[in-house]
């Protein structure tokens, strides 16, 4: 115990490292920063791996993407194919498509890398989505991490764009149809739509400029932004340190886990290899985007069952489920609400609300404290309910994007199915919200039970009176701490009656002062009514969505009150 820590230890390797480290530190002075960050603590929980998967699939996409650029020709110049894929020999196509065939059939390992690139891109978006769910349902986005959440939402949005851009580059029949729809969506924007479309595409669809421009965006502009934002995401993460679930020895003021060097570094390096291996396996055995089967793009052709990549599915579903509302505007104009709403307004609203959610929740619940301990979803039934409701909406839109496939496979009427999904958009999310809340309350009761009665042992005992009872074993200490702490830390801040009363008073006063003359001829102070209305709205939303109603009102059985025995 008393041995003083002796520099870097001994042995030939340590000597060399020490020498190199000294050489570098003399010039850069990094020891101070490194010594702190080398031991950055990573809490152990499986759900913390999800963000890593996203990061690693991004690296895989970068590596494989560079390989592909060596052969890909982003050009719509027409050529006659003369490569080794026999069925398309002599067919006229763009250079973009021909070079994609070239990568697939004439470059050794080209097809493999193309497929790994595509699979890793799908994984990238999926991992971001799941990582985001984890962060949402555990409340990891709360102060001080709101900025990182917002950066994450921007990354998700860009990932969708980046994926769509890459998917469109080969200029095959499937992606060309997708681009045609994209052009139509741009056209639907009021006033400037046709101009934006013509400028982006270099003319009417299919413009001569679009593939090369898309290429620049796909390989230069967006990856650059990605690198910057992911860098910021990581730096903020390191600066703010990880969140953690409550547990023995874990408080708001510490973080418990494995240090980065050496344990976590080796493990996560291995994990990167495994993610890469999984993508390689998919690239080896699971065919993806076989553009040679679709053929080159031709504006007069289309294949049945045209589906975009999965992450665009919800938007395509929204387009399919939208009623055909198109409005004439006096003066000879058309407002294409049937396209603008599902493809522009809806995602615009969804992603904006998502990006600002931490601020919205803090405003509504008045919770402006810093949180480093995570919530268990069950202890925040309303947030969990909202999240699940949004997920159900997403899933319905996603299924709507595959309504033709579902109708075909299950032999259903596509019209009925579409009507069902249309109704589902409005009916299912509220039901999911209610059910989720009930499940959360149920789980809270079970926690309560575990604390007070322990677990069932499976042993039945007969009492002298002839009565049968099951023996219970008390919960282990760690489990008890976890349950009690997480319930305790997940509570909304105590309502400060004085502050709330003052807010209400202000709001009432602001609403009641009409009639007085404030010199602006409107009989009320400027902005006061708006403030009152805002406060009323806040309270309404709060009481509807966020106020945690205890399941059982009996104090003894109220899990939110008497969990601590």
């Amino acid at each position, binding site marked *: 115990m008393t041995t003083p*820590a002796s520099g870097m230890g001994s042995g030939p390797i340590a000597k060399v490292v020490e020498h190199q480290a000294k050489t570098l530190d003399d010039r850069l002075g990094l020891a101070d920063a490194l010594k702190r960050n080398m031991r950055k603590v990573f809490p152990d929980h499986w759900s913390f791996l999800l963000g890593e998967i996203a990061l690693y699939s991004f690296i895989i996409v970068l590596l494989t993407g560079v390989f592909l650029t060596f052969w890909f020709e982003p050009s719509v110049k027409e050529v006659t194919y003369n490569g080794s894929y026999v069925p398309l020999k002599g067919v006229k196509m763009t250079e973009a498509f021909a070079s994609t065939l070239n990568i697939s059939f004439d470059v050794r390992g080209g097809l493999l890398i193309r497929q790994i690139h595509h699979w890793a891109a799908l994984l990238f978006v999926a991992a971001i989505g799941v990582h985001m769910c984890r962060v949402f349902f555990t409340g990891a986005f709360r102060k001080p991490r709101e900025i990182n959440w917002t950066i994450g939402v921007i990354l998700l949005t860009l990932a969708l764009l980046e994926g769509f851009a890459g998917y469109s580059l080969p200029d095959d029949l499937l992606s060309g149809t997708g681009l045609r729809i994209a052009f139509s969506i741009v056209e639907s924007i009021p006033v400037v739509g046709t101009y934006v479309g013509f400028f982006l595409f270099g003319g009417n669809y299919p413009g001569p400029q679009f593939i090369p421009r898309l290429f620049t965006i796909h390989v230069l502009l967006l990856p650059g932004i990605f690198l910057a934002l992911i860098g910021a995401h990581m730096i903020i993460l390191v600066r703010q340190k990880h969140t953690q679930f409550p547990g023995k020895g874990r408080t708001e003021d510490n973080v418990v886990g494995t240090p980065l060097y050496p344990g976590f570094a080796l493990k996560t390096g291995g994990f990167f290899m495994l993610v890469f291996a999984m993508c390689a396996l998919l690239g080896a055995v699971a065919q993806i985007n076989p553009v040679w089967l679709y053929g080159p793009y031709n504006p007069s052709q289309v294949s049945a069952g045209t589906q975009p990549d999965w992450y665009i599915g919800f938007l395509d579903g929204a387009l399919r489920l939208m009623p055909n509302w198109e409005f004439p505007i006096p003066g000879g104009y058309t407002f294409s609400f049937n396209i603008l709403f599902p493809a522009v307004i809806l995602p615009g609203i969804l992603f904006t609300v998502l990006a600002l959610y931490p601020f919205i929740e803090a405003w509504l619940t008045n919770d402006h404290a810093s949180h480093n301990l995570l919530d268990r979803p069950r202890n925040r039934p309303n947030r969990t309910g909202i999240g699940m409701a949004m997920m159900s909406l997403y899933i319905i839109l996603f299924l709507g994007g595959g309504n033709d496939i579902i109708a075909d496979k299950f032999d259903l009427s596509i019209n009925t199915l579409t009507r069902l999904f249309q109704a589902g958009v409005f009916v299912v999310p509220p039901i999911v919200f209610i059910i989720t809340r009930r499940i959360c309350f149920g789980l809270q009761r079970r926690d309560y039970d575990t604390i007070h009665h322990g677990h069932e042992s499976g042993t039945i005992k007969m009492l002298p009176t002839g009565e049968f009872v099951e023996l219970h074993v008390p919960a282990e200490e760690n489990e008890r701490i976890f349950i009690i702490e997480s319930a305790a830390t997940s509570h909304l801040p105590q309502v400060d009656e004085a502050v709330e009363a003052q807010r209400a008073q202000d709001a009432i006063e602001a609403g009641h002062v009409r009639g007085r003359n404030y010199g602006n001829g409107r009989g009320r102070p400027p902005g006061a009514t708006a403030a009152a209305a805002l406060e009323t709205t806040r309270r309404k939303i709060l009481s509807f969505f966020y106020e945690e109603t205890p399941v059982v009102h009996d104090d003894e059985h109220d899990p939110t009150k008497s969990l601590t025995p």
Partner: protein
Amino acid sequence: MSETSGAPRRRRLPATIRRAKDVDARVGGREVAAHDEQPPAVVDAHAEQKSERQVALIFLASAACTVGFAIGYVAIGLKNINDVELSNYVLGLTLTGALGFLGIGMVLWTKLLMPHYQVTEERHPFASPDADRQEFAEVFNQGLDELGLVRRPILRRSLLTAAGLLGVLPIFMLRDLGPKPEKTLFHTRWTKDARLTDIVSKQPVKVGDIEIGGLMTVMPEGVAIEDKNAATSPVILIRLRLGENVPYKGREDWAPEGYVAYNKLCTHAGCPIGLYEQQTHQLFCPCHQSTFNVLKHCRVVFGPAARPLPQLPIYIDDQGYFRARSDFTEPVGPSFWERG
């Protein structure tokens, strides 16, 4: 390893790691304290050696896969589609092995051969001390004062004007990205008296070339689909039974002998209408399922499209060829703002 006695011994660990507390107190300086949650167990030296060998073997398996990849790369040339398939399997699976075994080995190394312990790091509030904030505010305000941004409104406003204008400059420079839409979207490549030609064979279409209930995609004669602004021109020519067609008012002579011609672009999002159901006489867009009734001037019967497919007025000339009476009388394809 020379110690092969097999006797249980305390796992040999670097002193610094075993006593995590000391390490962290030193490494993290002021703020780090640590505790051992699971002190390193007493490990069987034999078991440890076994684990070490296991991990080493797994690393070697990875190396073997890499060698396999190299062999596959050299040995399998790409002469035909079967070679491509084989090459993809061989390269893909060996790459999976190379990466996967390496990953498994690294993870097992941490699991089997490294001490497991947790350290605790203290957090500190992010907010800077009040003194720092105040100092920052002072420096900042002093700077403002030196600049005179508040005192010198003329400077401030002219600077903002200049910078703002400069910010608009790049938007101007994007102007030449493409032509203005002008009237491009209001026209197709169809002209008066243009013959309808099969898009595949490029032959002009004659009466009788299509069976009843059949259809054909046609283009104006001499115009290929790749030509400039030709992508909106494809037309579906359908032959209905005589008398089946219910023409729109004023279009009674647009469908000679039961032949009707409609633009192929969906009025929703511009996908080509790919499917024709003979029984119900419906055209169906595979992209978003808009459905059009061919008998009733292609009006929308289902789906998100709002307008009927534009009809091309056609007639049959003396030699029996189909010809267009004119271009479409309305813009084709999806809606846009200026459409009217």
